[in-house]
């Protein structure tokens, strides 16, 4: 999987650079968009759940709580949204020239990752500003981040490939992403959920990832190891399966697109 990408690493770099250029060309505030989107969502949620509905909450600021959830979600939904139409939209390339097809959805994951990193810098500032005590449990964030990226790549490849065959995928994915948003503890905490539903929610790897990202950074708590093991196994397994299928059906893309 990696050796075939290695030959084309420059193409991947150029694709990332191209997407980055296209995205921020002819915009006035440029890269600030990367921050504006999650910050405005955070403010919206804080207003609705903190001011309007006055929901009871953890013992730390709403803004921190929502930003911690919104950031990884923005990355995931941004990357998958990009991926869905990435292959079908570039049919003029795909039917003309060969290169590993996954480069296009992967470049979407990469630019959204850059945005995510910019957002994380703001998140760190927010943590410091709120004087959140920093603990060694912060280091758990790294495997969680890796899991998030791997999971995002798998879903991106899957949606991109499926949309080549069935354009229904694009229509369905908009709706499914909305659905998934509520199935992920972004505007609520899994701690507030009844045990009966917890297991169901944990079938979604994003639940585990986002909930624990909040836990290890803001709350200074550790990770439940068996949960990490199970979720990691699931995510890695999904990755290998989707990549294998992708490579297998990739050769037919030019014919069916």
């Amino acid at each position, binding site marked *: 999987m990696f050796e075939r990408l290695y030959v084309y690493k*420059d193409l991947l770099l150029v694709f990332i650079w*191209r997407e980055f250029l296209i995205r921020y060309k002819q915009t006035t505030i440029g890269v600030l968009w990367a921050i504006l989107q999650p910050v405005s969502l955070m403010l919206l949620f804080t207003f609705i759940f903190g001011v309007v509905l006055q929901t009871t909450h953890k013992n730390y600021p709403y803004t921190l709580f929502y930003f911690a959830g919104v950031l990884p979600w923005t990355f995931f939904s941004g990357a998958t949204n990009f991926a869905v139409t990435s292959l079908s939209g570039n049919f003029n390339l795909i*039917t003309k*020239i060969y290169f590993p097809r996954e480069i296009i959805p992967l470049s979407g994951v990469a630019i959204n990752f850059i945005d995510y990193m910019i957002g994380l810098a703001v998140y760190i500032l927010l943590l410091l500003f709120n004087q959140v005590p920093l603990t060694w449990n912060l280091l758990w964030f790294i495997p969680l981040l890796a899991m998030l990226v791997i999971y995002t790549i798998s879903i991106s490849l899957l949606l991109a490939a499926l949309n080549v065959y*069935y354009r229904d995928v694009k229509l369905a994915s908009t709706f499914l992403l909305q659905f998934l948003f509520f199935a992920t503890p972004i505007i609520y905490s899994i701690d507030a959920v009844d045990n009966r539903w917890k297991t169901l929610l944990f079938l979604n790897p994003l639940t585990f990832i986002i909930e624990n990202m909040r836990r290890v950074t803001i709350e200074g708590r550790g990770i439940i190891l068996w949960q990490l093991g199970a979720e990691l196994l699931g995510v890695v397994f999904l990755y290998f399966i989707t990549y294998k299928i992708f490579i297998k059906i990739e*050769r*037919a893309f030019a014919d*069916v697109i």
Partner: protein
Amino acid sequence: MRTLSDSVITFQKVWKKYSKQQVLNNSLREELVYMITGRKCRDDLAEGEFWALNDICMSVVKGQCIGLAGHNGSGKSTILKLISNVTYPTKGEIKVQGRVAPLIELGAGMHPDLTGTENIFMNGTILGLSIRELKKRIGDIVAFSGLDDFINVPVKKYSSGMYLRLAFSIAVHSPADIFLFDEVLAVGDEDFQSRCLKRIEAIRSNNGTIIVVSHDSETLKRICDDIVTLEHGAVARGVRS
């Protein structure tokens, strides 16, 4: 006497099936079934399917320039797509040795919002050049295209002739072993065309292999060693020996 071992492109009993149907709900299911069962393909034609190529055998020797002629839909472009690995044969075997630069449609990798320079990097890496190679060649590419004044302008502001000149310049400067030209020789003004033909000569003298597709049989006769005429996906008139 040329032997088979000299050949850089070999087609052995190549068949390619295409479908006329727009919705290809079956194809994904079929791919997955083949993946699990390890079966190759169905030999029979389902409804709406046809053979775009049937039983093509050919071999091209290094340094040769081969012209592909034939009517629309006779399978010329399909052959180029198979050589460049964009698609795969339904049956048969294809061996290609060396780097392929497909100029199948000039400018396929261009983005209108990017400038000429940016598109050189974009298109160049798609053709398999590395960023370092491109940095080295960018001066030559710009000089060949004759677009010095416009190279930092977004290509959406180019005229179609300028657009094609840039695309062609990128393509012919790739260090590939095999060049595929599909109806691209009718590009630009006379001056540019003569430069293109010179460039083709240069590629040939560097032992590069060229496959040209064209309707213009005069051009083909002028630059090709051999011309293969295709009819309904089969070789009607083969390589002169």
